């Protein structure tokens, strides 16, 4: 039984702009607009693109010791976040598997948490079940969220909100944008400089129209979002990472601070600490097919003897790269960039190599 997909506050605007609507994680979302995915992708790499990410969950956690309590659920350094700082981390399970990846911000008086659309309900249930009872958890169902991404983002947003220019990567503030009260965070998931802007749901269309009124901004859909994040080497939950993958296997050890590696104190810490010490048995790597044929999710990865050594978890055409790009899980012995491998695409073994991630240099403003 399928329920009707939910609509974000921007749904009517997507339709007005000619967005091609698909069902994504239970939400009616635009996969592309008339310009097409290639153009939207290029727009984000060269100017600025506006994405609706209102389907993601926005949650506030308030109360004494909220940061300490969150640290019991994630391996990230949350107590070390200064007011106005944001951090990428993961909810883990007792086996070290990833329940979801998320961004936690220290908003001063509370934690502001953004989780994936597909895991939203499970994440909230997980937090409610595991955070101490004296903390207040509020899901912000009356907020919209957009991502303005690309090298022109700063100039565009600063023209409407000068404070935006002063933020560095992974910093967040509350500020008005054209008189609309927003939370502005300098982050995103395209590899480009940019912002995620949370605003009241009933102002989401107004704010989006203002941003889209700028000649450097075009709307972009889920299709471009996926090709951009893949080129940027960023994991997609449910594909590159899942409960079957630990943060170490996924190459996310950078998101676990030294203190937390040593102290543990998060679900699956024993597994993750052992993998940090000994190395995981398999790793998430970049994979570059030699020919023009894209390798999609589920494609088997073979060594040069033809033995299966892994599987593609995300793959497609990289518009900025100008050819196919992929990520996949392979046995650790084959995880070295430059190694020759093969991909079984439509029953034919095709040459490929392990590649350094990201495929396109990340362009964050640090």
């Amino acid at each position: 039984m399928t329920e009707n997909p939910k609509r974000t506050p921007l749904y009517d605007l997507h339709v007005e702009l000619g967005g091609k609507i698909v069902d994504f994680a239970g939400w009616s979302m635009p996969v592309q607009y008339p310009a097409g995915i290639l153009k939207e992708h290029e727009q984000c790499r060269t100017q600025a693109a506006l994405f609706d990410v209102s389907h993601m969950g926005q949650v506030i956690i308030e109360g004494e010791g909220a940061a300490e309590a969150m640290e019991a659920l994630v391996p990230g350094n949350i107590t070390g976040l200064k007011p106005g700082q944001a951090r990428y981390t993961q909810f883990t399970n007792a086996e070290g598997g990833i329940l979801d990846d998320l961004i936690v911000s220290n908003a001063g008086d509370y934690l502001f948490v953004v989780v994936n659309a597909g895991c939203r309900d499970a994440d909230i249930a997980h937090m409610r079940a595991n955070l101490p009872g004296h903390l207040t958890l509020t899901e912000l169902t009356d907020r919209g969220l957009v991502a303005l991404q690309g090298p022109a983002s700063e100039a565009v947003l600063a023209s409407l909100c000068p404070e935006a220019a002063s933020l560095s990567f992974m910093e967040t503030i509350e500020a008005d944008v054209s008189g609309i009260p927003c939370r502005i965070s300098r982050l995103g998931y395209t590899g480009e400089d940019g912002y995620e802007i949370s605003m009241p749901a009933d102002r989401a269309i107004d704010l989006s129209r203002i941003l889209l009124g700028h000649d450097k901004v075009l709307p972009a859909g889920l299709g471009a979002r996926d090709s951009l994040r893949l080129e940027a080497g960023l994991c997609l939950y449910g594909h590159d990472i899942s409960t079957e993958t630990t943060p170490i296997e996924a190459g996310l050890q950078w998101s676990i601070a030294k203190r937390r590696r040593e102290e543990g104190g998060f679900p699956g810490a024993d597994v993750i600490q052992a993998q940090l010490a000994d190395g995981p048995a398999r790793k998430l790597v970049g994979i570059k097919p030699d020919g023009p044929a894209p390798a999609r999710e589920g494609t088997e990865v073979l060594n040069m003897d033809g033995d299966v050594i892994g599987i593609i978890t995300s793959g497609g055409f990289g518009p900025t790269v100008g050819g196919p790009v992929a990520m996949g899980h392979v046995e650790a012995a084959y995880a070295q960039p430059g190694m020759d491998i093969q991909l079984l695409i439509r029953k034919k073994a095709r040459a490929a190599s392990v590649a350094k991630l990201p495929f396109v240099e990340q362009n964050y403003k640090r």
Partner: protein
Amino acid sequence: MAIYYSEEHEWVRVEGDTATVGITKHAADQLGDIVFVEVNEAGEEFDKGDEIGTIESVKAASEIYAPVAGEILEVNGTLEDAPASLNEDPEGGAWLCKIKVSESAELDELMDADAYKAFIADA
């Protein structure tokens, strides 16, 4: 010369026992930006409905199904270097392959232009 259309959104232009096969403008628009095209090699024989190639857009891969049984005579080699031409000229220069039709009766099971127009209008 007659042009037929399949429910898989292919067009088949028949001259004698040779048919040129391509995808319709409707299909090309639905696929979006096409980035890779691969058609099986000349000489290969196939039945109606067999996979004879693949078209990949940025979004996804779609198989090409044989609209009728036959043998591949020629593959349009220009698509290898210019897959995007399938978006620009799908019913003209960006044909996929020429085939030798082995069961001409199967052509009668395909649609004519008016029937195809109605078919996509209903979809």
